[in-house]
């Protein structure tokens, strides 16, 4: 039972990284790991609601299984996604990078980047 941070930076459907990360997250959750996911750069689009692709659906699934998902409000807005357009349960911290640094340095056993 580990605490693991996933840092995602790629758009959900142009590359395979996001989906691969989601598979790992689900496996970790099944084992009982504590998982936080930070969506940076184009990966914020994973937080958009109404996606029919697997990566977006996986975000809903991992949240329902207890993963914490954080995204940048500014990055979402710059891509035309307002707070009402995100998947319920995704958290938009005021200081996302500060939260990531503190989480990584003080709580996580390891960090994985995709």
């Amino acid at each position, binding site marked *: 039972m580990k605490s693991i941070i996933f*840092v995602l*930076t*790629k758009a959900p459907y142009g*590359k395979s*990284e996001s989906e691969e990360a989601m598979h790992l997250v689900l496996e970790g959750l099944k084992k009982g790991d504590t998982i936080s996911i930070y969506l*940076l*750069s*184009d990966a914020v689009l994973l937080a958009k609601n109404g996606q029919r692709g697997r990566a977006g659906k996986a975000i809903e699934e991992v949240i329902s299984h207890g993963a914490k998902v954080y995204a940048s409000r500014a990055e979402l807005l710059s891509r035309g996604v307002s707070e009402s357009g995100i998947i319920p349960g995704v958290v938009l911290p005021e*200081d996302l*990078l*500060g939260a*990531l*640094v*503190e989480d*990584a*340095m003080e709580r*996580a056993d*390891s*960090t994985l*980047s*995709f």
Partner: protein
Amino acid sequence: MVNVDKNKKTLTILLLKGPYASQLADYACKIAEKAIDMGYSVNIFLYGDGVHAAMKGQAPKAFLNIGDYLTKLAKKGVVIKSCQRCSGARGYLEGEFDAEKDSYPSSKIVDGVKIYGLYGFIDFLSKSDKVLTFSG
């Protein structure tokens, strides 16, 4: 240099992408700044195309100047090393290791960045509590 305060935790950031083609260099720098401002020791290692982040004379019109940002971070205490083989392949290297400057010489990279062999990264790893990688 690194880990002066033994209780101070160290974050190492590995950057494998150059600036202005993605946001990864921006994020690497912003996270480094956040972490050093929060009181952590921070290292950045530039590898592969990441060495372009340290190129001197960058003048982007609409983007954050990553070269200037690295110099600013170094002044704040972030230790920044750039891979020697990657730098050589991309035309930044100008001679053999200079022990006095503790870097391979280059007039083509910004102040605050030192060019090291890959063992410089191994050294970072051995002294780090966490590593964040920006690649792809």
